[in-house]
């Protein structure tokens, strides 16, 4: 893989994706073999928004490779509070670390930050923009459970603001999946993503109901619909209720349907699904470690 920075899933070719996933599979199979791979490597964490799993799994990933993190801490405790620009912050932190991981509430922040630094920078979420490492772990999970051949996937929930969805849709186009998008009309894919998918010749279909398409799916990727996207609480409850699933909803589905969710969930997936073979979302979250190990390994020059 030859990328200085990982900003968007759009930049990843099929070969890039397979390379990361293959390396992740090697690492998951024998993590001990890579335990000293990047001894003394330091990963700079710049999280301008709260994060639990992304931050923890990047930390676990670099530590499992023998390295460690330097963490900016929360915005409240940093010099950002004193009015420092993002461009200055990343230029300072790159002097402390071998690679940077950035999460920031503004769209395009990772692209801009990457223009100011020489060390590799990884986008860990830029507003409603992109979240490419989530996409890589999603793809890893899909490849392990359903494979990429003749893959049919349904993506349901908030498609407008969900950055994991935007990144995933690009990557699924790259692996030639058939994509069904299921959402309320007000939360359909944004124009920019639709434009790209159209340009890339993606096979996509949009629906407001899960039911007609469910029996065709190999994978159902569920995302959270957030209350703040609606003008009032009652409208939210009405709409969100239609995009919740339980074991009964899944009766018409194929036995080997894989159900995924980027987590955290609220009530989109009922707990009764957790105990079924459909549930892959916890494994999906765990896959964040080997996939981020693989990505860091490739970006830090693991083959050299």
């Amino acid at each position, binding site marked *: 893989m030859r990328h200085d920075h990982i900003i968007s899933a759009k930049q990843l070719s099929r070969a890039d994706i397979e390379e990361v996933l293959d390396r992740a599979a090697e690492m998951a199979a024998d993590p001990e073999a890579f335990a000293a791979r990047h001894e003394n490597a330091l990963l700079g964490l710049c999280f301008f928004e709260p994060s639990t799993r992304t931050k923890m799994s990047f930390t676990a990933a670099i530590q499992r490779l023998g390295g460690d993190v330097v963490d900016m801490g929360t915005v409240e405790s940093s010099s950002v509070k004193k009015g420092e*620009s*993002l*461009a200055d912050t990343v230029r300072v932190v790159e002097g402390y670390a071998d690679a940077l991981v950035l999460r*920031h*509430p*503004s*769209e*395009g*922040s990772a*692209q*801009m930050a990457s*223009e100011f630094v020489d060390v590799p920078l990884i986008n860990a979420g*830029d*507003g*409603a*923009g992109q979240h490419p490492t989530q996409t890589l772990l999603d793809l890893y999970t899909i490849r392990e459970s359903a494979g990429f051949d003749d893959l049919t996937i349904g993506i349901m929930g908030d498609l407008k603001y969900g950055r994991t969805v935007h990144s995933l849709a690009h990557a699924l186009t790259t692996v030639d999946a058939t994509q069904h998008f299921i959402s309320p009309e007000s939360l359909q894919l944004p*124009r*920019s993503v639709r*434009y790209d998918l159209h340009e890339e010749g993606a096979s996509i279909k949009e629906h407001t109901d899960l039911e007609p398409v469910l029996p065709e799916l190999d994978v159902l990727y569920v995302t959270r619909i957030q209350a703040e996207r609606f003008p009032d609480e009652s409208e939210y409850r009405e709409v969100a209720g239609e995009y919740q699933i339980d074991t009964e909803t899944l009766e018409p589905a194929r036995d080997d349907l894989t159900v995924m969710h980027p987590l955290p969930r609220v009530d989109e997936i009922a707990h009764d699904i957790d105990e079924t073979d459909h549930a892959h979302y916890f494994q999906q979250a765990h896959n964040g470690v080997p996939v981020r190990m693989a990505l860091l390994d490739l970006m830090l020059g693991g083959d050299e």
Partner: protein
Amino acid sequence: MSDRELRVSKIRNGTVIDHINAGQALNVLAILGVTTESGETVSIGIRVPSDRLGSKDIVKVEGRELSQDEVDVLSLIAPAATINIVREFDVIEKHRVERPSEVVGVLSCPNRHCITTEDEPVESRFDVLDDGIRCQYCETIVRDDIAAQIDVA
């Protein structure tokens, strides 16, 4: 166009932007950053009869030549415009605008969550699409009323 129809004095040194789509002259001034306070001598013709366009706008700015960035943005709202550079009352250079592949600066991104709208040391950059422009940072696509995105500093 005869002098009887359009009595706008010639300029000595500066730029004449001709064949602007009718109604866009004030937007052209905005692209150039020309305001009532900015000091240039400016002549404007709005909805002047034109053989080529039916009617057109024309802008003459004394003492000012256009940067490539300004010409690039100009091409988006006035694709038929011609730029005449005048020195000592003579047109020494005349060319049509060309649609660029990207425009830098001059426009601002309409997405209020875009990093370029914050206090960062970065200029706006847009890719030019067949039917609009697209922010290179947040990827927002603007199709309608590009003139509304002119950054009036």
